């Protein structure tokens, strides 16, 4: 150490005050360099006095001080001071906290003060300066510090290290989430399938959402070869195939309706594989078929022959909702009339038919209810000599109806 001052042992023999003065001056300079200015003041006044006794006493104190500086020079400030320095933007030094206990105390102090900068800076220092198992034991008992570190690593995209750290801390669920995110963040479809498969068997095995990941793998695997083939059709929204199951169903139902189930293109195979509910399947297919004006397909999806030749809705289809969808897709009135027949309650059917403007059905219901007054009112609300008006008019003038009013 270059700044050690070495004294010759001359005090006992030397009587030369001048040499003593010079040495004292030198020591004073060095102590001032250590950052303590008070001593300089008293020494400089003392040096002038030339009294050997006083100078000797001064030298003794100065030596003692220097020795104690050497001892404390590498000792750290109290933890609170350092944390405050970090918070206030003053200079600080973390390297002096050498022992494990000192590091832990420093970290605990920062955690109590709650300053994110301090917590993170100290955590990083501890990570750098301890071996891994020791480091883990420190932060596993301090979840807040761990959170800061994890977030920091995620912002710096140190994904693999973060996942390992999360595993080591026993946060398996979150490790799975981060791994999933990394797998699906970017990359082409085949890339993702590969990563997801790896993920499924590794971080996500036993994870509560693992079966959802499996479904995603299934969708992507099914869709991947199709994407390549479909990209030649510039006017089709091919990206729908990979965005979600319902969108994929919509796409397949639009362009490949009726493909047999053993073919990748088949909408019904997709429905089966993902166990879509009846409602979801219907929505997807009906909208798709309506978009290509395939009204007969819509009809056969939604209604079938009921009792005594009437029309009945298939399954648990919400026929009123579907009628509105078809109407908005501008389906022909014949289709709409047919669908409306499947609405069971006459009053519902009447209201909906009025709302959607299907005159024929309105008239039919009113006739069934034998409500002449309402029918007249309705006819008059229609445009004269339109199809609906003619039909209504014709029915009113038919003789063989027993009107109620």
């Amino acid at each position, binding site marked *: 150490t270059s700044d050690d001052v070495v004294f010759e042992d001359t005090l006992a023999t030397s009587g030369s005050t001048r040499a003593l003065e010079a040495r004292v001056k030198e020591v004073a300079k060095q102590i001032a360099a250590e950052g303590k200015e008070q001593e300089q003041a008293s020494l400089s006044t003392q040096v002038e006095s030339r009294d050997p006794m006083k100078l000797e006493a001064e030298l003794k104190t100065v030596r003692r001080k220097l020795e104690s500086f050497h001892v404390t020079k590498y000792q750290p400030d109290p933890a609170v001071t350092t944390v405050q320095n*970090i918070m206030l*933007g003053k200079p600080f030094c973390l390297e002096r906290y050498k022992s494990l206990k000192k590091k832990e105390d420093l970290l605990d102090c920062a955690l109590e*003060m*709650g*300053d*994110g*900068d301090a917590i*993170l*800076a100290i955590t990083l220092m501890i990570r750098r300066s301890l071996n891994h198992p020791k480091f883990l034991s420190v932060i596993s008992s301090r*979840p*807040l510090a761990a*959170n*800061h570190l994890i*977030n920091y690593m995620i*912002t710096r995209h140190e994904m693999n290290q973060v996942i390992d750290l999360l595993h080591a801390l026993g946060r398996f669920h979150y490790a799975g*989430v981060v791994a*999933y*995110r990394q797998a*699906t*963040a*970017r*990359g*082409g*479809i085949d*890339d*993702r399938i590969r990563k997801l498969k790896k993920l499924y068997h590794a971080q996500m095995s036993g994870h509560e*959402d693992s079966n*959802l*990941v499996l*479904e*995603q793998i299934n*969708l*992507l695997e099914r869709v*991947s070869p199709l*994407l*390549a083939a479909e*990209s030649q059709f510039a006017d089709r929204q*091919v*990206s729908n195939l*990979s*965005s*979600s*199951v*319902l*969108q994929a169903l919509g796409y397949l139902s639009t362009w490949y309706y009726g493909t047999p189930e053993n073919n990748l293109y088949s909408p019904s195979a997709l429905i089966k594989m*993902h166990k*879509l*509910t009846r*409602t*979801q399947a219907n*929505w*997807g297919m009906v909208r798709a078929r309506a978009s290509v004006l395939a009204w007969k397909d819509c009809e056969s999806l939604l209604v079938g022959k009921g009792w005594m030749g009437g029309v009945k809705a298939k399954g648990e289809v*919400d026929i009123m*909702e579907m009628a509105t969808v078809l109407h908005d897709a501008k389906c022909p009135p014949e289709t709409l009339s047919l669908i409306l027949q499947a609405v069971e309650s006459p009053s519902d059917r009447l209201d909906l038919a009025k709302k959607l403007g299907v005159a024929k059905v309105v008239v039919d219901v009113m006739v069934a209810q034998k409500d002449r007054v309402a029918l007249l009112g309705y006819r008059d609300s229609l445009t004269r000599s339109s199809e609906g008006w003619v039909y209504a008019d014709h029915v009113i003038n038919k003789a063989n109806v027993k009107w109620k009013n």
Partner: protein
Amino acid sequence: MSRAHLNSGRAKIGDFREMSRANILSILDSIHGNKVLVWDECLTGPVGLVAEYSVLKEHGVSRMFSMSATGLPSVRVDSIVYIIRPNVENCDIIAANIRSEERRGGSGLKMDYHIIFLPKKSLFCEKRLKESGVYGSLTIYELPIYLYPLDTDLLSMELPDSFKELTLEGDPTCIQYAAKALMQLQMVCGIIPRIYGKGAAADRLFRLMLRMKQEMVGFESNIKPQIDSLVLIDRSIDLLSTLPTQLTYEGLIDELFGISQASVKVPADRFGGQQQQQAGDVPQPTAPSSTEMRQVPLNSSEELYQDIRWLNFNAVGPSLSRKARSISAQFQERHEAKTVREMKEFVEKLPSMQAAKQSLGTHTTIAEMVKDKITAEGLMDTLEVEQEILSYVNSDRYLDSVEDLACKDYPLTKLLRIISMQSLVSSGLKPKVLDMYKKLVLQAYGYEHLLTLQNLEKAGFITPHNGQKTFGTLRKRLNLISDIVDEQNPTDIAYVHSVYAPLSVRLVQQLEKPGWRNIRDILDILPGTSFEDTQQIPTHLKNISRPDDQPKVVLVMFVGGCTMAEIAALRFLSQQEDKNVEYLIGTTSIITGSNLLQSLQTDLQPPVF
């Protein structure tokens, strides 16, 4: 809003704003010469509330730009000043800007670079700047503004991501900022004697405040306390209140159009008659294109708005009609005025009458726009589903409605609101239902939203069933659901959602009567601790007691955000004559259910070939 207006309440918010304003201006003054300000976009609004552009111009700011990675337009000024929040992305952009300027050779004029970190600098930002090699060219300042005044009774920290940071990332920075904000506020408005709080974040905030107070020992405030008590509410204890559609006028404007910094941008084309009169012979400009927007300020200095903002939307129409009639009647008075003195009085009233008329026109238009949007977005149908869920009708009918909505491409955020409501009301979803919803969402909107669902679970919105019946108990004891609500003349805060009284506001209401000690058992069902404490006031101020007829002032501070509906409910309580309390509201930011859930969503792109 002027300082005078902000000071018109019991707590001197105007003075508080002045303090922040003085801070900015002193920093600007210490930078010599001509300056260009480069903004982090999220700060232009909030800082604009404190110091308008005109004032900044007076202090040497010649132009203002937004930060962009592509570099600055070339300017000739003495200094370039960046105002940013302390995050690493901003620092990278600045470093890139500076390096490209140096490479370009600059404009020949030596320019100084300054960074103002708002509210304080961060170690990692400085480290980043050092790593990029630009630290030496910069001078760094801190601008400690933590709280922005939005109105005479409303203060916001404008930290929209605070809930996400607290629950998902475990980052307590916003709590530290909130503590600083409250300390700053107390410097202007006096020490607050009583503090109450509920929730883990509220607890941490409180402890931090105590510690900060200790560090300020020896600093004696000479200001008579203007605020009597402080209530700290952690958003996590009441997630449900953010979710139902807000039905107050201001709440609907926020939900449908988005209010930021107490003003809203709406399409300008419906405001035809409101355009300023053009000079006589200049031909009228062609109608503004439909994308042109108009910014309408929304605050209490506008008398009409002050009256209708907190009303249930169904009561707004009748209120506007009444106002219209009263204004017409006032204008008719000119026919009554006979004497010169009466004429003079009339003319003096004219400007305020005209302002009222314009205000009426603006809000009639806005109310119409709100109504149209409600119809266009089918809000009435979802309202029905919401009210069914809240009324705790244990039916499965809304499961089908949710499925239909998902298949119809209903916006995901809104669907998640409905599912979250169901989960919160039943203390979590049963495994089968939860599975069904998860599958439904992922199949309809894409598997990437698995992460969103994970986040929602972590934040507490959609969770597995935990066997308790929290909502049922709360509902009965605190009377959260009302069947009969008078929307025109409400008597209870439940009118803000037409059936549901926000839990958070009920808790604040109960604090006054019968007091939290009496509802200890209810408080214990909610997550997090509840506490109350007293801060010492210097003795010379203690004896100045408040006259009995003056109402108490209570500051309610939401950590994690609060909605306009909750604010309206608190304002409603302030207006009740028999309650004798006035509420001041502070929050980390003003949220709607949609933007809260959106902050928890993750944006992953599905793979493209």
